[in-house]
């Protein structure tokens, strides 16, 4: 398995892909089982406009609906996320690990290394898409449900090409900059924003074509799941992939490779400028290293700035005026659709006839928890396991500090950052509401932002606990992302089936938007449960970290 760069990369990565696809298969089984007990004719007989808004194809049956909902959101994000992880690691990852010099000490060119990594990504993402294709009829067969009305094969092909686009985007950024974090962050950001934009712009009169700027548009614009392969859309994505691959090749061959993992932060840049040197020298120097929590926070400032910006400006301020531009007739339709039906297609919220419903669906439904989870999970995962992986934990703990203090200070940095993202969301939505003249209650915006912060913190502290228990960054990150997807899905679908309705309460997401805080105000009970879960997970992290041997290497 170590015969070539291609073989080694594939060996390093296949397990993650296999676990993710197996998990998606299990989730598909669960969703199909939930749908199996529901009389879907009630829904499929609805007017065409309802079905169109919700993305339900005419004549869809149980298995097809399950596949469409699960693959269209969870499957697409997972496959693309794994491709981003592989793409960003291709050369930048070797640089971060300090292995690029050794690798290129062999008779292999940079081009050869990049092409090998790209080939491995193609293979694994392809196998992932094939697995999703095969899983649908297999599970439908096991559960003995009929499958019709949807074309899973063409859908899998679109999933494959869509994921590759983001993988190659990450590869190109990584190849040009040597920065793995930047490559994965920008690619994931483009993906998330595209996902939201493709949902919003088509219902704004005169702005429909803006959606075409976002790559996600070409994934399911032509509804391949109903209409089969959309060669035009695929051609756009594949053309972009070829361009990105070429950019990556040029980039990796023209720049100096990085031998150490030294990043230049905003504070570092300001420290180097004569104008700001004096004050920033203190801020980036003495202050930055004054406590473990402050140092931890300083290491993730880029992530915070990007997340806070997206939530403040794009998902907050901009949304208010956009709402006023939307086709009100279409929005009014959404009011008539029962809430259960929105849950039926896995939507976070549905009634967009009010500004509160709109913000709940677009800003708070997915993006706010994702933003907080991304920030907190990265801090949580890297807090302990990252120091062990970088071999600095031994030196840190050679100082007279308890392991519990290390955990608590790292958790403190996470809480501060979660609050910062939550507060940015609050400010953005409030400003958006004012600018759009929407009149959303400020207290309710604060309540919803607080709950988003808390639900994000639950998953951030879960990453911390996994980091504390295993000392492995990847386990902590992928474990947390996996848990977030599963709990989101449980919350969305369990309520559809009476016998499973109780299970929805297992999901932290059920304590977030289920009481519609943007319209009804703070649910302190839910807030207390989420805060309590956070505290329990931090305490668990302390216990786990105190009990085990430190890992010597990553």
């Amino acid at each position, binding site marked *: 398995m170590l015969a070539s760069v291609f073989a080694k990369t594939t060996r390093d990565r296949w397990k993650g892909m296999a676990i993710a696809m197996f998990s998606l298969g299990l989730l598909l089984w669960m969703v199909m089982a939930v749908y199996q007990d529901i009389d879907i004719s009630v829904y499929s007989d609805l007017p065409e406009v309802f079905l169109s808004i919700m993305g339900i194809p005419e004549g869809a049956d149980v298995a097809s609906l399950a596949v469409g909902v699960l693959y269209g959101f969870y499957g697409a994000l997972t496959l693309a996320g794994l491709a981003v992880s592989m793409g960003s690691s291709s050369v930048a990852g070797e640089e971060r690990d300090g292995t690029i010099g050794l690798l290129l000490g062999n008779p292999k060119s940079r081009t050869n290394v990049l092409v090998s990594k790209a080939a491995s990504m193609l293979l694994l993402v392809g196998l992932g898409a094939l697995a999703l294709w095969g899983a649908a009829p297999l599970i439908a067969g096991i559960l003995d449900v009929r499958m019709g009305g949807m074309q899973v094969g063409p859908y899998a092909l679109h999933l494959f090409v869509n994921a590759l686009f983001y993988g190659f985007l990450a590869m190109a950024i990584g190849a040009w900059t040597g920065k793995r974090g930047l490559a994965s962050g920008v690619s994931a950001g483009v993906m998330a924003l595209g996902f939201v934009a493709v949902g919003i712009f088509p219902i704004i009169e005169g702005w429909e074509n803006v959606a075409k700027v976002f790559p996600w548009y070409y994934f399911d614009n032509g509804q391949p799941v109903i209409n089969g392969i959309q060669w035009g859309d695929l051609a756009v994505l594949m053309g972009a992939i070829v361009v990105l691959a070429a950019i990556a090749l040029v980039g990796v061959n023209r720049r100096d490779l990085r031998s*150490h993992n030294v*990043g230049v932060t905003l504070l570092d840049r300001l420290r180097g400028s004569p104008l700001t040197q004096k004050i920033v020298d203190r801020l980036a*120097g003495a202050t930055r290293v004054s406590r473990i929590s402050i140092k931890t926070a300083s290491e993730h400032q880029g992530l915070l700035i990007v997340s806070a910006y997206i939530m403040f400006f794009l998902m907050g301020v901009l949304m208010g005026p956009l709402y006023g531009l939307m086709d009100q007739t279409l929005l009014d339709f959404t009011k008539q659709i029962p809430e259960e039906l929105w849950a039926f297609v896995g939507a976070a919220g549905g009634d967009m006839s009010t500004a509160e419903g709109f913000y709940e669906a677009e800003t708070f439904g997915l993006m706010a928890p994702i933003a907080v989870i991304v920030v907190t999970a990265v801090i949580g995962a890297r807090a302990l396991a990252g120091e062990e992986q970088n071999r*600095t934990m031994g030196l840190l*703990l050679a100082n*007279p500090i308890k392991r519990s203090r290390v955990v608590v200070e790292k958790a403190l940095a996470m809480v501060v950052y979660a609050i910062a993202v939550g507060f940015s969301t609050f400010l953005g939505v409030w400003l958006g509401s004012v600018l759009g003249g929407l009149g959303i209650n400020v207290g309710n915006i604060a309540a919803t932002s607080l709950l988003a912060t808390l639900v994000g913190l639950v998953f951030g502290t879960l990453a911390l606990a996994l980091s504390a228990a295993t000392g492995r960054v990847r386990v902590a990150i992928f474990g947390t992302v996996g848990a977030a997807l599963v709990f989101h899905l449980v919350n969305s679908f369990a309520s559809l089936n009476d016998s499973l309705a109780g299970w929805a309460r297992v999901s932290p997401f059920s304590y977030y938007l289920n009481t519609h805080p943007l319209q009804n105000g703070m649910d302190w009970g839910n807030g207390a449960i989420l805060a309590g879960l956070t505290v329990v997970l931090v305490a668990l992290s302390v216990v786990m970290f105190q009990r085990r041997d430190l890992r010597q290497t990553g």
Partner: protein
Amino acid sequence: MTDQIAIHAEKLTKHYGDVRALVDLDLDVRAGEIFGFLGPNGAGKTTTIRTMLDEIRPTSGKASILGLDSHDAAVEIRRHIGYVPGDLALYPNLTGRDTLTYFANLRGGVDWGYVEELTERLEADLSKKVGDLSSGNRQKVGLIQAFMNRPQVLIMDEPSSGLDPLMQRAFQTLMREVAADGTTVFLSSHTLSEVQRVADRVGIIRRGKLIALEAVASLRSKAIRTVNLYFDGPVEASVLEPLPGVRDVKVQDHHAMLSFDGQMETLLKVVTERFHVLDISTEAADLEEIFLTYYRDDEVVV
């Protein structure tokens, strides 16, 4: 050096699954001594250090530093120690000064005058980001952080790694100075010439077991030496080979060269009784030879 025990290990054992990394290690290091801890790669040196520092927990047995249990009083112990881990890693995005400030803060402050003195002596550059430094210059930052709180016990795993010969000398002088002031130095190293130069005693570990524990001078006196004998006439190797402690005899005309690990007095007595010896010279074994001898032998020596 005093008779007080600074580092104590009792039946210290660490298993990783079926791998016995450390087996019943008994060890006492006296306060104020420089103790060299030797062993080949994977012998258990780093495991011993990591266990003593509570980074990993022993499967059985216990260790103490300055009379404090290595696990129960781990935090208190760390107030009094300086540590340089093997394969030192620091925060690449911090400058050397920021790195030292960080660790100084975690210790509740250090004497910055002393930090400046150490920086000057080791010719360290604290203005650059650690990630931009060469491995030797990075090592200097690691050494300064270990010495800067004037610890009672210094635990160092391959501390001169990456240092140039001049800096190695400066570092050895520093070690001797702090030891003279009462600091205990636990020095795990592959640089045997360095250990020979500075250590009072050495412990040799092999496959997780301590196989020798002696003063460097005593080890050397017991060790195999190369003896050159010059006679006034030809001599046969077969005459010298049966003598106790003699091995590897090579004879060329009037000159015999042999390896000897017995009492020199006995050798001289026997040889001078039988032959007329014109000249004699011995080459004292250095630590490397002793080390290699221990590792060539299958039997445990102590």
